[in-house]
Structure formats: structure tokens, C-alpha cells
């Protein structure tokens, strides 16, 4: 469906398509400009395929100067611009605009430099996440953040979403693993942010850019940190006959002073789907499993294993199975890694949520989600980064059944509100995009949203970069607030209702 564009967030301009095309042709080769329906089709959505918009014009520049010229042109004419990496985003961040230019960054796919002595790589934004680790593996190094989509997603998209992965519990998110960015502002100015040293003078704009969802600048180069490959890793699977006990066990592991490299949870629906899909050896009768990976030097792994194994049993696991060799380890992870596509096979459509909550709330929140699933009559599969408290409830629905997506959206919305209520956030790693833009109005006060708008204007005065994503207009919030009364009071009662 076409997501409703809020009138306050729509950027109108009077530029005619042929006029802009003519200007673009003065510096872009013909095959780098797409404007016909069938050519535009692949760009109409990202991985949140429920929302689609046919782009106005797509450009695929190959040089920084070309992007700069596109930006200057659009900035002068007041035309909105959206950047796109691999389009694996799950919140509609790269969703195009029907009167805007979509800049595809896929041609920026070169690894520019590898500096092993300083443990860093300089890459163009269209390089895929996994390509970096592959390239430096022979040096005994790797890039730590490992989103499940890492074969496909780009580093530019990772920075824009502050992507995480299974191993972020121990090794950090994108924001912890980048050193320097080169960006272009909407006005086309090239700014270098950060450095190859451990710190830089001035404001930490790297922090603001990371997770900014393409709203502040176009990322044209990224310097990422590299880490030495971990010599030894072992994964174990703890099996539970009750979801809440598994949730409590997660908090218990962290409370014991352990930081596993990964601590992932799957519930019965996810276990069955994954097992059917790739035969990872998961017990299909279990109510939940925890996959707990320990890594480090051989010595550290042995030492921690001796601690974690009995700990999981004492926290209520019925059995704990250790993957004894690399093959067994890969197999144990395979089910988790393929969980999304696996769920995709048991249901015509699914809708992935991304709320993050304090770990001690896991058990209670999982229980509430089960209740909501029953209330709306839609199954929910849970497969998520438990150690970080980052939930991924997958709401199963059928887009061909009238009203089903509506129900899925409402169920999702309830889960987001629940996440906020228990002290969490609406999104841990997938971003706000178009999907959760209304919920920003619940999570943040009017004054805080205003501050975000001021930051946005510092980078993009005219508000042309990715409008209608990530940051709601205050008018949207006033209207949404009128529908969504929480804690018995309106969030922005001081704002006029439209």
C-alpha cells in the first residue's frame, strides 16, 4: 500500500520531470538516470514491502561530484531527495517519494584502503557489510557488527540505521565501530567527521550521523574499525519449557557478570519454522530456546563455559546442548540466521517489530505479546537479540485477506506502546522510517521533537533530505495524539488539534 504522506511533511515543488531530466543529463550518463515505470519498479520499496511508492526519478551516480551536483540542483529547486543502499531496511527508510529523486549508492562499491596497522578500512558506502570482513579475513581481522542481512546490506545503510547484529552484545553497534565519515550535506558541501585517531576535537557529530536514517547527509565514505578475529568460540543451546523462564534466564546470565558474544532467543513458532526450513536440530516441542555464544581465547572460552553451562541449568533450562565443533556450531546458528525467511515460508506475510526493553522486563513483555496475539487473532513468532533486550516479534498475517494488514499494524502499534511503557524504545536497530513515525510522538515530548527538528535544520536547512521519515512534524503528532490517548492524557495537550 502507499503510505499516507502527511500534508505537513510533503515537500511540494513545481519542477517538471522533463526539465530536471534535461539538467541531470548534462552531467550524468543516460543509463545512470531512471524514469520509466518498469525501470523504477525495483525501487518502489525496501524490505518493508507493505509500503510502496513509485519513485519520480532514480539516479545512480558513480562519482562524488555527480552526487554533489544532484544535491545542489535539488537543493536549489526545493526537490526532496532520498538515499538508498541495498534496500534491505525494515522501516521504510529508503521508501522513495513520488515527487523526489532517489539516489542509489550501489555504484560506490569499492574498498578504498585497508590499514592493518591502525586496524581500519576505508570503504565506499555501497560496499556490503560482509564484503569488508571477507576482504580482511586473510589479515586475521574482521568488521564486528553483523546484521543478519550482512550479505546484502551496505555499510552506508548500516551507518544510517546504526545497524546491530547477533554479536553486538559484546562488540557494539555500528556507532561503536566506525571512526570517520565523509558526508555531503543537502547543500552539497563535503564534510569530514571524525578521524583515524581515537578521538577528535569538536562535537561528536559521528554520533548524530549514525542512525540518522539519511535525514542529515549523504554518506559517501566510511572508515570502519577492524578487530582481530576471535580465536575460539563455542555456542550452546538451552532448552526451556516456558517462555517466561527463558526470558528470566537472559537477565540471569547478564546478572552473573557474563557478557556472552551473543545471546539470542527463539520461541516455539520460530523454532518450528526454522527447523522445518533448515534442520538445525532444534527441539520442536520446546517453548523457547536460548542460543548463547561464548568467545575469546581458548582459555577464556573453557573458563566461561564452565560457568555458563551450570548457570543456564540453574536458571531453569531443561537441557543445555553444546556445539562441540565448528560444524555443529554453524548448524546451531543456521536456524537462527535463517529464521526470518523461515517464518516467511509459514505465513504469506510477516511484519517485524523492533522494540527494545530492559532485560528484566523480557518475561513480562513476552507474556503480554502472547496476550495481544490472541486478542488480534494473529500469530506472533519471536526471534530476537535477547541479551540486548531487542525484541523482534514477527506478526504473521496475510496481505490478501482484507483487513489483515490493518490488524497487524494495530497489533504492532500496541507492542511499540508496550515497549515504551516498560521503559524501552520503539526501535533498537531497524530505525523509525515511515513505519514508526507516529510512535515518535509517544516516545518524545514536543520540546524534544523540536530539538530534533533544530538539529535537522542545522544539516539540511530546507528539510529536503528524506522528509516524512524518522522525525514527525508537530502537526502529525497533534493529530496522532488526538487518536492516541495514553496514560489517560494527551501527549501534547498544549498543542492545537487540527
Amino acid at each position, binding site marked *: 500500500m502507499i503510505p499516507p504522506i502527511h500534508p505537513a511533511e510533503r515537500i511540494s515543488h513545481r519542477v517538471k520531470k522533463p526539465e530536471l531530466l534535461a539538467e541531470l543529463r548534462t552531467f550524468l550518463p543516460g543509463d545512470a538516470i531512471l524514469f520509466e515505470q518498469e525501470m523504477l519498479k525495483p525501487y518502489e520499496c525496501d524490505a518493508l514491502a507493505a509500503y510502496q511508492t513509485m519513485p519520480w526519478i532514480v539516479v545512480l551516480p558513480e562519482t562524488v561530484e555527480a552526487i554533489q551536483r544532484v544535491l545542489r540542483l535539488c537543493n536549489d529547486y526545493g526537490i526532496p531527495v532520498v538515499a538508498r543502499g541495498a534496500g534491505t531496511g525494515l522501516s521504510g527508510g529508503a521508501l522513495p517519494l513520488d515527487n523526489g529523486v532517489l539516489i542509489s549508492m550501489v555504484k560506490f562499491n569499492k574498498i578504498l584502503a585497508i590499514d592493518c596497522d591502525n586496524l581500519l578500512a576505508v570503504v565506499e558506502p555501497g560496499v556490503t557489510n560482509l564484503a569488508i570482513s571477507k576482504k580482511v579475513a586473510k589479515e586475521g581481522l574482521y568488521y564486528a557488527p553483523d546484521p543478519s542481512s550482512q550479505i546484502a546490506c551496505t555499510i552506508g545503510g548500516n551507518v544510517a540505521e546504526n545497524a546491530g547484529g547477533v554479536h553486538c552484545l559484546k562488540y557494539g553497534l555500528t556507532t561503536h565501530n566506525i571512526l570517520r565519515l565523509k558526508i555531503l550535506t543537502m547543500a552539497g558541501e563535503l564534510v569530514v567527521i571524525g578521524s583515524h585517531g581515537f578521538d577528535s576535537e569538536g562535537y561528536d*557529530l559521528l554520533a548524530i550521523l549514525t542512525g540518522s536514517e539519511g535525514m542529515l547527509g549523504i554518506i559517501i565514505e566510511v572508515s570502519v574499525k577492524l578487530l582481530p578475529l576471535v580465536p575460539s568460540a563455542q555456542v550452546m543451546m538451552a532448552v526451556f519449557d516456558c517462555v517466561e523462564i527463558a526470558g528470566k534466564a537472559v537477565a540471569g546470565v547478564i546478572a552473573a557478570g557474563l557478557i556472552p558474544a551473543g545471546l539470542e532467543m527463539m520461541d516455539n513458532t520460530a523454532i518450528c519454522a526454522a527447523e522445518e526450513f533448515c534442520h538445525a536440530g532444534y527441539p520442536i516441542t520446546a517453548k523457547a530456546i536460548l542460543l548463547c555464544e561464548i568467545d575469546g581465547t581458548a582459555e577464556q572460552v573453557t573458563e566461561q563455559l564452565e560457568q555458563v553451562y551450570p548457570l543456564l541449568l540453574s536458571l531453569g533450562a531443561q537441557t543445555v546442548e553444546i556445539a562441540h565443533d565448528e560444524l555443529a556450531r554453524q548448524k546451531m546458528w543456521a536456524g537462527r540466521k535463517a529464521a526470518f525467511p523461515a517464518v516467511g515460508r509459514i505465513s504469506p506475510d510477516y511484519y517485524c517489530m523492533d522494540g527494545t526493553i530492559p532485560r528484566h522486563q523480557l518475561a513480562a513483555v513476552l507474556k503480554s505479546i502472547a496476550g495481544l496475539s490472541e486478542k488480534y487473532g494473529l500469530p506472533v513468532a519471536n526471534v530476537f537479540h535477547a541479551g540486548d533486550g531487542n525484541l523482534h516479534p514477527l506478526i504473521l498475517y496475510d496481505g490478501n485477506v482484507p483487513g489483515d494488514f490493518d490488524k497487524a499494524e494495530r497489533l504492532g502499534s500496541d507492542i511499540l506502546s508496550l515497549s515504551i511503557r516498560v521503559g524501552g524504545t520503539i526501535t533498537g536497530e531497524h530505525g523509525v522510517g515511515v513505519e514508526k513515525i507516529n510512535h515518535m510522538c509517544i516516545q518524545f515530548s514536543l520540546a*524534544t521533537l523540536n530539538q530534533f527538528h533544530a538539529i535537522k535544520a542545522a544539516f539540511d536547512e530546507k528539510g529536503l533530505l528524506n522528509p516524512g521519515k524518522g522525525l514527525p512534524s508537530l502537526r502529525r503528532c497533534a493529530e496522532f495524539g488526538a487518536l492516541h490517548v495514553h496514560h489517560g492524557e494527551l501527549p501534547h495537550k498544549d498543542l492545537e488539534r487540527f
Partner: protein
Amino acid sequence: MCTSELVSQFQEEILNAQLEKSRLQIVGGDTKAFLKPNVPASLTRLEIGGYQGIVDYQPSELVLTARAGTSLTIINETLAEQGQMLAFEPPAFGRSATLGGIVASGLSGPRRPFAGAVRDFVLGCKIINGQGEVLTFGGQVMKNVAGYDVSRLMAGSEGTLGVILEVSLKVLPAPKKELTLNIAMPIESALVQMVALRRHYLSISAVAYENGFLRVRYSGSKTGILSVLDTSVITDVDVESSQNYWHALKEQQVDFFHTKGDLWRISVPPATPVLSVPGHWFYDWAGGLRWLKTAAPVAAVFGAATAHGGTARLFRSSQQAPWPRQEVALPLARLNKRVKAAFDPSELFV
């Protein structure tokens, strides 16, 4: 005064300053004022030190939330009781250092290359901006991408964007045992060995070099450390307890810092070779942070740092204010200015 009254009072002081078109210096424990030599002493001070207290600390969540005036000593003690720590090892520079000052000055200790900097551990914060508005960013959870990451931006903002009222920090389990290898070798070899150490997965938590000795702190086990090093350059090795040396280093109490002369803080990519500025050098952060005592001209120091893609800052000096600051590329300087204006449009906070 109760804490909510204090917040209203801060807001009032800010709004007053706005009316009077005066400027404000935010002060925590006032231990790091030397870091702002260019700020005139006559400015009105906005004292945050009284806004104290740990608001929430749940060891199992690995998160501590406290008001900005809370003393660093209290925070460290509270964490130690639970076997946890601030992994970025902030320098206190005096008994009265506060959480707000630690975050605002953005300084991290020897563990920084191995564990991360202040900004890496900030999960959320509450601030008052230049309009006197109380704003909340981030939260108490490990992952959060709703809204721009203003919490981390506050780290190192030196009190120029707004008043930090409250901060949530990620904390980590403290290592049970730490020891230090003290290895004699010349600096040129040491810089090469530091690279070798970082390129291997080892249980290292600090690497420094001073006066002919490479010091390597390990947490847990020293397995592998010596096998990574090139033994031909080592003239002597011994093991010492870790506590005192690294504490003294981060608080700048080791002898090096007591010698006369201007003290420079230079941040460069860690594998940068020896910089050719005369003076005494101290290497922390496995080569990434270099302290220099020198009488060399300012331009020579800035020039050496810039040539290697680094930055230099005069840290302590008897020179008259204003101290020179390294030039920032124009596009970045303009952006910094606009970001400052987004938080503090009337330029109240200096």
C-alpha cells in the same frame, strides 16, 4: 532544596541570562576548568554540583543512571560493591569531579582503546538546552535508534550545548585480576610491538610507553602476550601489580606530568611513527594518545599532529589566555556552529 526545585532554578537562571543577554559557564565539580582556559573567570557560573544522587542502578541491567552532580567517587564505589566499573576509566582530576563534568569533558582513561570512550557508554541523558527546556534523549536500554543520538553528542560537548542533568551509562563487570607486564625496549620497537599486540586477540586492557618501558596491562591471563612480541627487542620483563600505576597515569600523577613545560595532548592514529617534535613524550592508548612536554613553537606541534591526520590540544600551560586551538576545516567548523546554535541559539553557554 529538593531536586525538582533545583531543575526549576537552573531553568530560571538560563532564562534570566537570556533576558540579560549574559553568558553562563556550567560548572560541575570545577576540577576541569583548566580545560577551558579561554573562558573569562568573570562569567556567571551555573553550578550543577548540588544536583546529586544515583537515580537507578540495577547491576543485572548493566546500567547506572545518576544526576549530573553526583561525585565520581561515589559512583565508582557503588559500582565496585557490585563488582562492576565504568569501563572507560574516566580521570577525576580531583576529589570533587562529577558525572556531568566527566561526560561533558569527554575524557577517557587507559582502557579506552580496548573498551571504548565515554561516548560509547552513554545510553541516555536528560539536559536543559539554551532555551531552558528540559529534554530527554536515549534511555536505559542497550540499543535505541529512535531520534538522533543526542546523548552521545553531549559527551565531550564541554558544557557548550546545554546543562546535562542526568545520564544513563552502560557499566561492565570489573575484571577479577589485572597485572602489568613491564617490558624494556626502545620506543621505535615499542610502537611496532603495540601494533602487534592490537592485531591479536589478547586479554589486554591498557598499553603505555614511557622512559624505555612498554607497559601492558592484562585482565585475567597473559597467555599469548609474550609470544606476540618480538623477543629480540626486549631487554627485560617483569610483572607488577596494576592498580597503582594506571590510576596514577590517568590522574596525571606519574612523574612525567610533574616536569616543567607546556603539556600537549595529541591524538593520532595509533601506528603513527615517532613525531619529530623535540621534548618529552609519554605514550598511552597503545600509541593513539601522546602527551608531550615541550617548549617547541605551537605551530610545530599542530603541524606534526595534522600531518598524521591527528589533533593536538594544549592541555596545561603557564601561557596567557587565550590559548591557541587547532584549526578545524571550514565545512566542519560551520556545521559545528550550526549544531551549537540548534541547542543554544543565544550562545549562553561557553
